């Protein structure tokens, strides 16, 4: 009964989303006031139906309704409650449901917070969001309904994929999707602007807070995914340049470029057509990401639950939205003219460089990700492009990007020379280089040129951002939230760069074979293997190894690491033991029984690795503070 209600709610949501698209786009086109006024209740209706549908599926999981095929495939009687709820989005059908629920949530937020926008413009934004919902709802209903019955019902479920049974991964998809789908709002604003011809600074001001919100969710989502991969999946790696990771990283890079380009459009009315194009790109790359993850066209360690026929449907949606919006762009953006110029050293040109470099980075990653598909499609051989490509290529745009970031923050609009700030910046850069050399040589005792460059860039950005805040506080006595948020987010970039540099340069990884009582020496630490014992979890059995870590004969920590065998799927999984610290993580993962009383074990020393995720969190926090700036609130109340 409940699953049928869920399916019914899904179909109702489809009908209402169709109404939302028609009321929105049609209402604005024909100037039907009553249609446009019907939008808020319609959008609310879509949200209520999606929430109900999602609730029904959750109920089926919580109550172990194994007569639903999706539940039977992804849950189990022994699965703990938290993971039964997380299992709702543990595979394709449910995650699609979540995707649409989040889209409906964004649309509802837009409907409720946009009462001050011109009615026709607001109607078009909601109409475009409705159209996207129609696309994905028809996809779900036609190819991937999570409510299909299994007859006869299964006695017990096949269980959730064990590597997904983890708190961080329970939270990862909803947050990442908030970001992915959030780019749809920026896209809807862009399309509405092109339809209405209103592509000015006001448009940029309306779009900006939504874009920043999407961006900050994307930031947190990617960071969570990386953290999860680090301790659960990757044997201590934090980024693999895996196609699915790239699929989330490309929208992030484009959204980052979009935020900066919107800043110029809002303040100066420049880059208008470029900004529109970026909004289209960001959403297209999000759709492409969904396509890549769901279609199974790419070999990836992350691509769960994939199916080519579904991929074809998403490809169709992808083409519709990309080709449609680009065609509109071709017709409308040519009408845009910019009369004002700006000088070489100005905030505009720094932001232009920022955009060029971010987009270049996204393009290089896109090439590496899609090239294997291209080769395969034309029978040129089966290839994969490995992490070394991405590692080299990603540095080309990002190193100048980070260096320019520290300077560009301080440049004024139009033609401000850096003037007196130049001396201060040179001082900060010099200081950063000294600190970098001290950290590299003093703390770690060795350094390659790239390591020093990385540390210097990181410290320079942090110093420059801090000085930005201090200078404003001391001289101007007034610091807007937007400015503080911007500086904080940039400092976060610096923190992240330091983390990446440190862990890349000084990590130590060793695969060893150890018998109980044997000790391995890694960096300054000695790892003594104490032996392994069987233990039992709620839905798995495990062998648990204990390792005592000492530094110069002083005990630092004791870690346990498990090799789990999940009862339902007989799938083994490794649970790493990690000793967390500001300056380093110590990482122990149990391998397999090698015979002769020995176990294989991977032991790692990961200096500064925590700064990677800390940096990402600081960036997101900066975005949050910037969004709360008074200017956007007054825009919401009546500008």
């Amino acid at each position, binding site marked *: 009964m409940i699953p049928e209600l869920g399916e019914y709610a899904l179909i109702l949501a489809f009908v209402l989303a169709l109404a939302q698209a028609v009321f929105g786009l049609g209402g604005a086109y024909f100037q039907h006031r009553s249609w446009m006024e019907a939008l808020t209740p319609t959008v609310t209706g879509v949200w209520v139906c999606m929430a109900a549908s999602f609730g029904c599926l959750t109920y089926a999981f919580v109550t172990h309704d194994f007569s639903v095929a999706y539940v039977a495939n992804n849950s189990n009687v022994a699965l703990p409650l938290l993971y039964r709820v997380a299992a709702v989005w543990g595979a394709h059908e449910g995650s699609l449901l979540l995707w649409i629920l989040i889209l409906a949530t964004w649309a509802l937020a837009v409907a409720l917070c946009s009462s001050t926008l011109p009615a026709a413009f607001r109607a078009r934004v909601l109409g475009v969001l409705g159209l996207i919902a129609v696309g994905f709802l028809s996809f779900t209903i036609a190819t991937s309904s999570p409510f299909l019955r299994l007859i006869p019902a299964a006695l017990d479920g096949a269980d959730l*994929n064990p*590597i997904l049974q983890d708190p961080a991964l329970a939270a990862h998809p909803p947050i990442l999707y908030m970001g992915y789908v959030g780019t749809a709002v920026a896209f809807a604003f862009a399309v509405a602007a092109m339809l209405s011809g209103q592509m000015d600074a006001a448009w940029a001001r309306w779009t900006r807070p939504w874009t920043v919100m999407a961006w900050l969710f994307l930031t947190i989502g990617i960071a969570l995914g990386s953290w999860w991969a680090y301790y659960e*999946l990757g*044997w201590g790696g934090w980024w693999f340049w895996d196609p699915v990771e790239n699929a989330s990283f490309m929208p992030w890079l484009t959204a980052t470029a979009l935020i900066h380009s919107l800043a110029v459009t809002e303040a100066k009315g420049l880059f208008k057509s470029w900004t529109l194009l970026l909004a289209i790109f960001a959403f297209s790359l999000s759709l492409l990401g969904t396509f890549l993850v769901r279609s*199974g066209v790419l*070999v990836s*360690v992350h691509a*769960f639950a994939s199916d080519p026929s579904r991929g074809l449907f998403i490809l169709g949606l992808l083409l519709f939205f990309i080709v449609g919006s680009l065609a509109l762009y071709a017709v409308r953006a040519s009408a845009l003219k910019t009369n004002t110029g700006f*000088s*070489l050293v100005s905030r505009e040109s720094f932001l232009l460089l920022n955009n060029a470099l971010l987009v*270049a980075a996204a393009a*290089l990653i896109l*090439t*590496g990700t899609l*090239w294997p598909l291209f080769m395969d499609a034309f029978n040129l*051989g*089966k*290839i*994969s*492009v*490995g992490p*070394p*490509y991405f590692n*080299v*290529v990603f540095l*080309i*745009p990002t190193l*100048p990007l980070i260096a320019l970031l520290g300077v560009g923050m301080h440049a004024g609009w139009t033609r401000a020379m850096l003037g007196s700030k130049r001396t201060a910046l040179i001082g900060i850069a010099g200081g950063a280089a000294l600190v970098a050399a001290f950290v590299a040589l003093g703390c770690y005792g060795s350094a390659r040129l790239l390591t020093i460059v990385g540390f210097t860039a990181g410290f320079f950005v942090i110093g420059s951002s801090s000085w930005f805040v201090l200078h404003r506080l001391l001289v101007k006595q007034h610091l807007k939230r937007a400015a503080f948020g911007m500086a904080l987010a940039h400092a976060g970039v610096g923190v992240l760069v330091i983390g990446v540099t440190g862990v890349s340069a000084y990590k130590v990884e060793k*695969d*060893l*074979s150890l*018998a109980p009582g044997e000790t391995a020496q890694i960096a300054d630490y000695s790892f003594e293997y104490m032996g392994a014992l069987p233990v039992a979890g709620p839905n798995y059995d495990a062998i648990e190894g204990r390792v005592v870590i000492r530094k110069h004969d002083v005990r630092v920590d004791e870690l346990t690491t498990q090799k789990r065998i999940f009862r339902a*799927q*007989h*799938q*083994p*999984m*490794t649970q790493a033991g990690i000793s967390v610290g500001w300056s380093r993580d110590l990482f122990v*993962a149990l*391998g*397999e029984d*090698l*015979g*002769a*009383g*020995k176990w*294989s*074990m*991977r032991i790692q020393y990961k200096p500064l690795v925590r700064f990677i995720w800390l940096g990402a969190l600081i960036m997101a926090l900066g975005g949050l503070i910037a969004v709360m700036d008074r200017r956007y609130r007054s825009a919401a109340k009546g500008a």
Partner: protein
Amino acid sequence: MTPRRKRLYALIAIVAGVAVSAAIALKAFNNNMLYFYDPSQVAAGVAPLHKTFRVGGMVTKGSVVRAPGSLEVRFVVTDFQHSVTVSYSGLLPDLFREGQGIIAHGHLKDGMFMADEVLAKHDEKYMPPEVAKSLKPPVARPGAGT
């Protein structure tokens, strides 16, 4: 310097920067394109001798050999027509087991594939697409096309 000339220099600098970056990117790209070969192609000598590449197939049942207490392991990967012996030192992925489709990354040495990385998929029902395609009939493809 006139603004015009300044702009010219800036333009030249940007073009030069882009050209150099593109050259580096292309080089990185060419060096890191990894080709995939199935065991039949390796047996036929199609696979390169002095370059790293990826080989994939099913791990032959009963072929995994390990010296007790050692990290060294050897196993045979097959496409049901030809097979390749793979040598590896290190931790195998959780889902590595006999009868499972895997991909190994490494190079050939005296007819043996020296792997520096072995990949298996998360999902036990999963078969890497390259491996699924490379398996030769008449043998059924277990688990392919999930």
